[in-house]
């Protein structure tokens, strides 16, 4: 089983996590920029954070045979802090980089005007840089947050296939399925989705545009939830190809739209990463742990 975890905050995790992830089949990840668990107080903190995402964390992952990508944005919680408005001006220099595969996480936390303003600016930046968008949906008032997010995406003119609406559940999946956007599910130990509920959603809605992540971070979470979802899929009768599609080919196809995936390490950088790498289970050019 090869796994691309399309949403995991590895900066918060240990080298032991990288090792068990590799052992479970994880070969690539995307780390969306988010908050620290407490507020940052200056734009400079974001510069250091983004530099870490494209620098040290990418190197750390490579030591364990895992290809690390990231998304950058001013996250919804901190979009409300006027001290951090300058973060928007930092973003273009990162959005040009290899391995920066989307704008995100953006979207709503408390459904404020400031969140909406920043969200709309992120959608514009994505269009300008030819990048997909990773949209966080709120923990509270999720259905309304999802509905409003889809309205803003539609109004932005971005093609729906360039947008992944994340942290969905049984209540919100239908809205997104109709929209043509990709559907993301964060599988958590206690809250959000669990792997068995996820399998039921897959059985009901099919595998098209379905993305599963662990969203593991500094809170109670499990970086192996992708692998556990794969196991639950097999128990429920899905075959290997279906598991591979949900856990590898779908996230690769979504992020490959950026043209900035780093999977095609040894080959032609101008080539399309999806075309080159579908069917390859082993990534090249990596240091064994």
């Amino acid at each position, binding site marked *: 089983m090869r796994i691309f975890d399309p949403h995991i905050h590895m900066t918060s995790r240990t080298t032991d996590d990288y090792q068990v992830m590799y052992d479970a089949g994880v070969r690539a990840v995307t780390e969306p920029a988010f908050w620290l668990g407490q507020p940052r107080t200056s734009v400079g903190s974001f510069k250091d954070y983004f530099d870490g995402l494209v620098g040290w964390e*990418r190197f750390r992952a490579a030591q364990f045979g895992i290809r690390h990508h990231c998304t950058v944005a001013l996250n919804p919680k901190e979009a409300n802090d006027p001290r951090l408005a300058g973060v928007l001006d930092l973003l273009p220099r990162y959005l040009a980089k290899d391995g920066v595969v989307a704008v995100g996480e953006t979207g709503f936390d408390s459904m404020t005007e400031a969140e909406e303003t920043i969200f709309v600016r992120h959608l514009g930046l994505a269009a300008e840089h030819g990048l997909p968008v990773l949209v966080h949906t709120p923990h509270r008032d999720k259905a309304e947050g999802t509905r409003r997010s889809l309205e803003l995406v539609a109004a932005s003119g971005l093609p729906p296939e360039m947008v992944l609406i994340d942290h969905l559940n049984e209540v919100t999946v239908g809205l997104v399925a109709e929209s043509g956007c990709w559907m993301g599910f964060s599988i958590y130990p206690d809250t959000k989705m669990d792997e068995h509920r996820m399998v039921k959603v897959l059985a009901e809605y099919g595998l098209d545009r379905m993305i599963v992540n662990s969203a593991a971070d500094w809170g109670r979470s499990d970086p192996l939830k992708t692998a556990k979802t794969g196991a639950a899929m097999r128990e429920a009768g899905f075959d290997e190809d279906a598991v591979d599609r949900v856990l590898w080919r779908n996230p690769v196809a979504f992020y490959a739209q950026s043209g900035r995936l780093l999977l095609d390490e040894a080959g032609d*950088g*101008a080539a399309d990463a999806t075309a080159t790498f579908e069917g390859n289970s082993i990534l090249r050019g990596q240091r064994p742990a």
Partner: protein
Amino acid sequence: MSAEHTERLFPLAAEVAADPSRLRVLFPAVGRLVGRGPTDPDDPEGLRVPRIEDRARAALVAAVAASSRLSPTELTTMLTELYEDGDGDEKRAVLRALDDVDIPGLLGLVEDGLRSNDPRLVAAAMGRYADRHLGADVWRHGVLKCLFVGVPLDAVAAWTGRVDDELARMTAAFVAEREAAGRPVPEDARRILALYRPHPEGER
């Protein structure tokens, strides 16, 4: 680099030579626009031999420098910004570019690379620019860092001509620590010690 890489690189080099400000946009995009990967299959990370994207980025810097459209100060500022705003690959490529384009005032970037714990940056920092400009103290610590982090000694430009008493002492101490810990001693450490010939008494 293959003929295809060169073919893709050529118009980019012409573009930055005509308008150096384009380097800010094209430098990060080189892996996508020209290609990436090792030039020596035995050196996948490009520790000894620059990778395709390193060479292509260095060629763009060389094209800007050769165009004479920027003053030396402007060129120094541009490379500093490319380095400071760069990801690991871009930082490495700036250091690689200094092998062939001798731009003064950028030792700070080399020293930053040597402080990192990324072997690819450390290797690139010990190239020909370091050989030309780095003071003996920092250079020796750079060599020792290479031994520590597993950068092959052959990545260090012209190292055989710079082995001195102090580097031999530091290397011998490193070997003793490794042996005390029961850890393997890199062959490169022994190469330094084998090369070193202490001056006979009275000749120092």
